[in-house]
């Protein structure tokens, strides 16, 4: 149990340390250390769950079960590797004169603030606190999107703030309705605890819960980036600093989806109409197709990959919506591999745009000739995200496709079409950027590509063989969410 508190206290200490401490040159390294200690704490937590099974803290405030434990470790891991990338990246941005010392302080402090909000969303057992933490994540990142203070970045941050703020207000209304439904069967402060709600789900009024779920899906769906609530996402990703894009895509979207699925479990327990699933399938498929189509008309490299995130989040939402054991298993796996691959891609994209001096894809050329590691990293990352075997994304997309053919065969062609469109959309842009001659005067930048290598290595590993403990967690989580195991 101490591990949970450690996971939350370390980033809290980080916020205070960076916010109140004076400016120092080694803040990037310290940020890495904070994240490294936190990763150790999450591993300790994971080992506890591995030995004892689900942990519910004494005051019932925190719940760690197989569904969130791997997401917690994943969050800490991506947080650490991105911070390793961010240290030299931000130092370089400062050399270019884009940042001042104070803004760098704000950046590191809010980096830890964002991590804290993410851990809180995942560990808390209280649906109200989950909402508070989700809103907290918006508040922490909004100043980071406008970190460069250009008119575009301020516009992006304003859009992000207003859209996500208004969107997530809907989720609070849903939470209030959920609490209202819970108060019909029992009173007191404990009625908003997920573990209590889950036990009593069959007694909750199904109609109120269905209305509540619509609000939750719209609210948290804004954060997932579901079409048509996705407008903030490409702007925020393209205008903020690249490490922020990596954690937004890799972590925030996942955690918002996590919140939706937690609520879906309650609704499924109360009503048997499968309405939550249909809603998720509809929104998911729409986002998937729109995301894939929009890949084609992008000009900015970071916008390109943020549309790719919309597309993948759509696919996960769709898979959770189908709801069978195979689809759920696939969605859980896809959450992991997408998060690892996408953050790796954003790391290489950051280096690529730094060495080309622009984010415009028309001007980024000859990456492999300038700096082979960056060029190959981007190419292999794109191969992985497009769903090439033997990477993990292929495995999960293949499973989603199988599950769709099994349950809704008439949707499978749409899914295949979307995958094809997305593949073409990514490669028509990537190929001219990595191959070809380098423009004159393009120099390699100081880059640390270990995060990319480790992430893509893990994705490859997950594509070839899923380690037994992880497969066990996925199976148990699938059992929890869909009611039966995939194997």
């Amino acid at each position: 149990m101490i591990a949970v508190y450690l996971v939350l206290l370390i980033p809290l200490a980080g916020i205070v340390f960076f916010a109140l401490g004076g400016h120092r040159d080694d803040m990037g390294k310290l940020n890495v250390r904070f994240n490294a200690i936190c990763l150790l704490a999450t591993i300790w937590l994971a080992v506890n769950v591995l030995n004892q099974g689900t942990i519910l803290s004494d005051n019932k405030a925190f719940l760690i079960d197989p569904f969130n434990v791997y997401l917690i470790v994943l969050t800490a891991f991506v947080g650490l590797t991105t911070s390793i990338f961010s240290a030299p990246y931000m130092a370089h941005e400062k050399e270019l004169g884009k940042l001042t010392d104070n803004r760098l302080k704000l950046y590191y402090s809010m980096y830890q603030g964002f991590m804290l909000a993410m851990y809180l969303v995942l560990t808390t057992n209280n649906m109200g606190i989950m909402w508070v933490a989700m809103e907290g994540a918006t508040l922490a990142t909004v100043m980071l999107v406008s970190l460069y203070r250009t008119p575009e970045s301020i516009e992006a941050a304003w859009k992000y703030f207003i859209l996500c703020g208004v969107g997530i207000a809907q989720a609070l209304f849903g939470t209030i309705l959920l609490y209202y439904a819970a108060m019909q069967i029992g009173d007191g402060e404990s009625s908003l605890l997920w573990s209590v709600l889950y036990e009593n789900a069959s007694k909750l009024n199904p109609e109120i819960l269905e209305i509540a779920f619509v609000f939750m899906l719209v609210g948290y769906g804004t954060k997932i980036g579901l079409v048509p609530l996705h407008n903030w996402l490409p702007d925020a990703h393209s205008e903020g600093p690249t490490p922020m894009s990596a954690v937004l895509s890799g972590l925030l979207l996942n955690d918002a989806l996590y919140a939706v699925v937690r609520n879906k479990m309650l609704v499924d327990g109360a009503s048997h109409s499968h309405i939550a699933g249909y809603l998720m399938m509809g929104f998911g498929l729409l986002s998937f197709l729109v995301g894939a189509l929009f890949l084609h008309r992008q000009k900015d490299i970071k916008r390109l990959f943020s549309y790719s995130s919309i597309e993948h989040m759509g696919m996960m939402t769709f898979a959770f919506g189908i709801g069978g054991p195979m689809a759920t298993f696939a969605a859980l796996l896809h959450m992991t591999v997408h998060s690892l691959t996408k953050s790796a891609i954003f790391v290489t994209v950051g280096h690529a745009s730094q060495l080309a001096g622009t984010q415009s894809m028309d001007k980024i050329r000859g990456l492999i000739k300038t700096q082979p590691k960056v060029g190959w990293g981007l190419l292999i990352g794109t191969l992985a995200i497009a769903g090439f075997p033997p990477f993990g994304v292929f495995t999960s997309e293949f499973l989603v496709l199988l599950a769709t053919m099994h349950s809704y065969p008439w949707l499978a062609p749409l899914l295949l079409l979307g995958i094809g469109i997305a593949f073409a959309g990514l490669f028509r842009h990537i190929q001219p950027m990595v191959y070809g001659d380098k423009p004159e005067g393009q120099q390699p930048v100081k880059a640390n590509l270990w995060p990319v290598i480790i992430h893509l290595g893990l994705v490859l590993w997950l594509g070839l063989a899923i380690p037994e403990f992880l497969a066990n967690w996925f199976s148990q989580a699938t059992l929890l969410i869909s009611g039966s195991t995939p194997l």
Partner: protein
Amino acid sequence: MNIEQTDFYTQAILSMAALVGLTSFLMLGQGRLLRLIFVFAVQGFLLTLTTVLAAYSLNNPHLYISAILTLVLKVIFIPWMLRREVLLMNTQRDVQALKNKTVVMLGGASLMVFSYYVLHPIVQTTSPVMLNALAVSLSVVLLGMLLMISHRQAVAHVVGFMSIENGLFFAAIVATKGMPMVVELGVAFDVLVAAVLFGIFFLHIRTSIDSLDVDLLNKLNEVDK
């Protein structure tokens, strides 16, 4: 249901719901920014009264803390900050908002009917009073969104944003006698941070586009120009 037969608390809640709904409509049709902020403060004050009433009638002391938080944040701090901003920028009118007032008001009325329609299944589990209260809160949320759509000034957007919060708060007080204490403190903290961030944003928007007209924030989109 005969309203005279219900107890004092229920009657009071119903009148409060009506007044809160009314303030939302007043804000919707308001083209002058200072008056908009004043109506917003009145709505905050009505919420404070509702909270105190609920705390007293239901004997729930932690609601007094919520009432104080609401008073400080939504009646004093946020209106003060917005008023300062308006006076500083000298943009007292939102001319755009006055152009299609009729359509916006009709839209607002239909949103209210829509809220009743959406929440109607709730009647099965409770009295029609609760339906009224919840439907009014939902319509305050939706009217807040409509306010943001129909107005062009950043200040009006913040008022819309915060009045959405007001609608949610009203729902929490009336339907569920307040959320658990931790959650309420968390929400109040988020609102406070959001208000401070809005203040910082005004500064940035002002220095970057020299106006608080959000229509000028239109550089990022998917349409080729």
